[in-house]
């Protein structure tokens, strides 16, 4: 009995202390887990359907927990003809860089609803051929051009990224573009900026519909447990 008591006492003494160290469940939380690369489907459709537009866009983002670094790159060309035989064309490249914040942090499928910002930049050339008759100054045939001029703007973005199947994702991005400023224009004012749109508006709405492939390079950290109601 003494021996049993002794063993019991010893067992009680060797019982490990309660774990007071908080387990770190979010270790390396902010390290990227994969890269998502996609393209704007609307741009591809417009290039095939519309006679006056040619362009494509590639989008990519990398996650840092709920924060995403986003980069876009694209080309864009437009051609217009008027009833008076005048014509306009532009051709250029653009890129955007920015960040998004995901507000669906507990979605099991890791779908994403985000709000973000972008800085956009374009380099482009445009040409305007004018056939005009002024009642005072008479007829004129003129060519105006801007060569390799640049423009920059800002965007507020929002949208969704939804996992469709394994590595395939789809998404929308709505863009509120503003703060357009161009440099290098001389005899001709820009009409259409690749990546931005028409220049006659102080702000401009844009929309992309995208398909992505996500390439993971490490396992995503587990979702935080649901908070227990006290």
């Amino acid at each position, binding site marked *: 009995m003494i021996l049993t008591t002794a063993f019991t006492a010893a067992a009680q003494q060797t019982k490990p202390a309660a774990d007071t160290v908080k387990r770190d469940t979010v270790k390396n939380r902010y390290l990227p887990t994969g890269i998502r690369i996609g393209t704007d489907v609307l741009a591809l459709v417009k290039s095939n359907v519309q006679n006056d537009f040619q362009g494509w866009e590639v989008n990519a983002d990398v996650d840092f927990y709920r924060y995403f670094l986003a980069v876009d790159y694209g080309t864009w060309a437009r051609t217009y003809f*008027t*009833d008076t035989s*005048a014509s306009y064309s532009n051709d250029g490249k653009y890129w955007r860089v920015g960040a998004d914040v995901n507000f*669906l942090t507990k979605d099991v499928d890791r779908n994403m609803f985000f709000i973000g910002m972008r800085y956009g930049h374009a380099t482009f050339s445009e040409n*305007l051929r004018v056939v005009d008759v002024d009642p*005072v100054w008479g007829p004129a045939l003129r060519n105006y051009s801007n060569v390799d001029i640049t423009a920059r703007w800002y965007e507020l973005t929002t949208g969704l990224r939804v996992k469709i199947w394994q590595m395939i994702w789809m998404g929308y991005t709505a863009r509120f573009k503003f703060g357009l400023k161009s440099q290098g224009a001389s005899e*001709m004012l820009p*009409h259409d900026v690749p990546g931005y749109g028409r220049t006659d*508006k102080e702000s401009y709405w844009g*929309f992309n519909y995208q398909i992505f492939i996500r390439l993971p390079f490490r396992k995503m950290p587990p979702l935080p447990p649901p908070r227990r109601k006290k």
Partner: protein
Amino acid sequence: MVKKTGWFIFFVAMAAACLEEPECFSLNNNFVGIVFKKMSNNTRDTVAFTGIGADGTDYAWLTELTYMTGYDTLRLNYFNDSTVFHFRIEDVVYELHLNYTAQAQFVSEDCGQRYVLSNLSVGKGTTFDSVRVVGAVPKKKQSTGTNIEIYRCPITNVIKLAFVSPVPLSQITADYFPAAMTFTGDDQSSVYIPLDPAAETSTITFDLTDGTSKTLKLDYTNEVDTLFNACGPQVVLSDLKVDTVVTNFTNVAVARASIQDPPLTNFAITF
């Protein structure tokens, strides 16, 4: 929930992405408004023109004698960066050289292009006394506003004579006049007379319709003075006095012994 949110945002974005097409009316801003002013008191000046034209066009904004204080719809040539206007007052032609930046811009397939003008300035070769740009951005057609103020230097040798009773004048002559001032129609209650700036006295003869004549001889001082830098040295006449020996009006009362621009009554004359 996610799907519904997605569709909602999709349709909102598509609706917001619809852009209005620009209107095609009055796209160019190639009109300038000018006013004529007196440098002496910065008030509007009434000028008589017989014609307004420009280099590079046969179009005439004015073809007959017109009194005006300004012109609201001079049209700049947006195919160039400058326009030279000619203002004709009888045989004298004044030139107004205007320089600006003209840029073309495509608007839409329906509207075509427009021209945006800016940085309006006055060029060398302008022959008006003084010109000031008060609005460097030309305006659109049917817009109001002044872009150019054209000033004339003060006239320093013209007096105003008021007649106590209206007088039936036929002509006024002086040996320094290039031609007689003739009158037809109603009796005159006042006249504006230029004095000889090269002398210190002027003798003026008034011929009435009944064949009688009266003579007014005025003495004054003339000095060269720079009233405004833009005008340079000018001969200024002052200290007007009536020579009572030669003058044969019943009475000549002095109202002002100095010359004003615009002229105010200097003498009240009783025939």
